[in-house]
């Protein structure tokens, strides 16, 4: 059952991808501007609060509990619950609006690619990257509905831009049919779950990286050091980051378990064995074990916090390695990069 290739549709898709990358770039700038501007605004608020505190007016002990002293470390991070606060952050709003616009264009690009090829748009490296970036952005936007994770914006959107640019520059492949090895419904199941889990791992990677920075900053502040990383005040405290990234990682881990399992079932269908230590299988297994280690670390005394964050980061680096280096330079049965 092969649909014919529609080249025009494919060209439209590439145009959409380019436009999406452009829109994301502007969104990225807006996110960065938001970090810079908001941290400045917050510092001004702090200074005002500090000045007010000097005036010996009895604010009342009850009140002082709700408003932490301006100098405390807690005051210099965002709310732990990551809910939207009342204050307006115009650049952030612009950034989110642009991201939504970019995602719409991006989505059109993914859909036209699928229509052009007459199949799911994840059959080679170019398509993994463009579709993967789309999923990452959509997951981020969906997360934004529930939580104020705009502090992750520069990271996620920056990564989406990199992925789109890399896809167009390094991995560009015109629309084409799938090689027979990929003509299976398992491609739809196995790869979509892999892409979705990777998108979630992307979010937690960003959070874990921020957690390390924030944890370092909090320690410095507690020790009375100067706050050199002002923009980090928009980011919640290290513990909240750790908890949320743990929750997302559990979902991503289950997803990755399915990726591994469905991959094994497909391997059985295609190659006659469900596990054969093919390079890609090895790395999928390594990633699974690293994240399993992460989950165990969270339950092991002395391994929570910074160490767990490092495991989460190492796991994500393995995901990146698996996607780039293993796909391109390691010989194996998964060499479908289309290069």
């Amino acid at each position, binding site marked *: 059952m*092969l649909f*014919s*290739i529609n*080249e025009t549709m494919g060209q439209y898709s590439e145009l959409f991808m380019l436009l999406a990358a452009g829109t994301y770039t502007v969104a990225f700038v807006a996110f960065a501007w938001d970090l810079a501007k908001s941290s400045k605004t917050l510092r001004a608020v702090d200074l005002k609060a500090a000045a007010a505190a000097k005036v010996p007016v009895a604010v009342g002990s009850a009140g002082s509990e*709700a408003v932490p002293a301006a100098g405390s470390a807690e005051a210099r991070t965002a*709310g*732990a*619950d990551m*809910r939207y606060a009342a204050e307006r952050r115009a650049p952030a709003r612009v950034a989110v609006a642009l991201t939504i616009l970019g995602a719409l264009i991006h989505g059109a690009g993914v859909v036209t690619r699928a229509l052009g090829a007459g199949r799911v748009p994840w059959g080679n490296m170019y398509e993994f990257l463009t579709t993967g970036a789309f999923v990452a952005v959509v997951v981020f936007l969906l997360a934004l509905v529930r939580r104020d994770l705009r502090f992750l914006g520069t990271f996620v959107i920056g990564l989406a831009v990199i992925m789109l640019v890399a896809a167009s520059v390094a991995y560009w*492949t*015109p629309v*084409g*049919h*799938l*090689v*027979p*090895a990929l*003509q299976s419904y*398992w491609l739809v199941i196995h790869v979509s779950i892999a892409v979705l889990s990777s998108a979630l791992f992307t979010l937690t990677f960003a959070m874990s990286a921020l957690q390390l920075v924030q944890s370092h900053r909090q320690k410095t502040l507690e020790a009375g050091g100067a706050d050199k990383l002002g923009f980090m005040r928009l980011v919640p405290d290290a513990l*909240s980051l750790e*908890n949320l990234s*743990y*929750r997302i990682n*559990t979902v991503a*881990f*289950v997803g990755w*378990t*399915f990726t591994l*399992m469905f991959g*094994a*079932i497909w391997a*059985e*269908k*295609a*190659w*006659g*064995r*469900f*596990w*054969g*230590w093919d390079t890609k299988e*090895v*790395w999928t*297994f*390594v990633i699974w*074990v*690293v994240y*399993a*280690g992460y989950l*165990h*670390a*969270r*339950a*092991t*005394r*002395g*391994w929570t916090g910074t160490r767990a964050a490092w*495991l989460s980061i190492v796991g994500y680096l393995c995901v990146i390695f698996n996607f780039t280096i293993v796909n391109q330079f*390691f010989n*194996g049965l998964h060499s479908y990069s289309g290069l």
Partner: protein
Amino acid sequence: MSEPVEDTKKSKTLEDAKAGAALPTLGLKGMLRWAWTQLTSMRTALFLLLLLAVAAVPGSLFPQRPANPAVVTQYIKDHPDYGKILDAVQLYDVYSSAWFSAIYLLLFISLIGCVTPRAIAHYRAVRSQPPRTPKRLSRLPEYGTLVVPADAGIPASRAITDAAALLRKRGYRVEVRDADGDRPSLGAERGFLKEVGNLVFHTSLIGVLVSVAIGGLFGYSGQRILVEGDTFVNTLVGYDQFSPGTNFQSSWLQPYSIQLDKFDVKFDRESPAHFGQPIDFTAQVTTKENPGAPAEKKVLKVNDPVTLGGTSIYLTGNGYAPVVTVRDGKGNVALQGPVVAKLQGDNYYSSVVIKVPDAKPEQLGFAGFFLPTAFVTEQGVSFSGDPELINPQLSLNSYYGDLGLDKGTPQNVFELDVKGLTQLNGRDLPTKGITLVPGKTYTLPDGKGSISFDGVKKYVGVDIHHNPGQVSALFFALLAVAGLVVSLYLNRRRVWVRTGTHDDGRTMVEYGLLARGEDHRLAGESAAIRELFQREWQLGPDAPETSDTVASTKTKDQ
């Protein structure tokens, strides 16, 4: 998996470890006990887990024997300096190496040592009543109070039975204490399945491992090349290559047969970038369950194996097989039939080796290339311009002499050992190479015979697998996932409620919640229970009390 049990276990392990360190004269039993506690500690499990990840990596860096033994041999040849050293430390057999096996076996022993006591402990916990009501509920992470007005007519004892009924309905196991006392209370617990899921997950992993072992012991696999018209019969001699499991017995092979009737390849003719890329392989086959069974027509495709006689047959390769006739110096037909051409480059550019041991007086050998669509560049380099048979051509060199087949040493059918041979034709010889198109015959120099190119057939490579551990591996994998999901998303919670009657007749209710392990929805559960109580006692959503602020100070929400 979040393990609250771990804390107590950890400190115990530490104590044990200290005891072991302080008393070196523990004796063998003590040493073993010490080693056991070390091995089954969470920290060791974590270390082994990470070690397993690291140990798996070399298998992707170096060629592996089980996947491709020829590549390993070549690799050792290409790296004379360290190739042998790597072999000595089993880096070409990583996944069956002593060190890799040691890591995962230790991991699984550690796992068993961890799961067993936890299973016993959990069995006891499931059978026992919720823990006694703490003195000060306000110390629990979630805490709230409710006041039932005196005119509601709900005394402390009634309030506690109401609360017990509500919690039971919500899935809690409830025990009421001092029901008729001054300050009746209840303890409730739910989410025992969380730990069950955790235990099921870890146990299932053992199941997966055992299933893999069963496959290794009782399974077998093999390869066979089938040219159109060929029939494979499932007996040991029918295989080109066969890898039996450790416990394999040839009587297990059911003598089914499979004949390749026709093989079709569809090439991409639409997209300029992928022009000529194969997009469909379809093999028409005729199968018989056993020699006496009726013949059945089946289709074999990539991703769509044929199952037969307890095995699955997979389409894993294909190519062209030029049909040739070789006559020897006496004019007799010494070889007639298709010769499998091995893929070498783009567009089915393939190598051909023809060995003619039956040629008299001297054996003949041919080596060269087959091109489905031959093109020759100005430099004289030939290549294949298209994968389909547009201009098929055989380019061969010829040899005569001793092929070395009679010595009994196994030879690669795809390689011609020219040691005992004298070259007849070749590019550098005055006789030049042999170039044949279908229907043509070339007469060898010196009356050595002739070779005719009669036509081209297609061949497929099939893999045949039998793995008795497969189904149970899938079963345990699914069970593991189910256990994982339950253990990650179910929460084990405890609730305590205490009631009392105020001097003015109001009934005071206080409750507290405690989660075992991480539970970000504990606050939500607390709110839900509060709402249940309020509805039950018709207090209205904004009951006049202070617990709202008490509760909110517990969380860090700003």
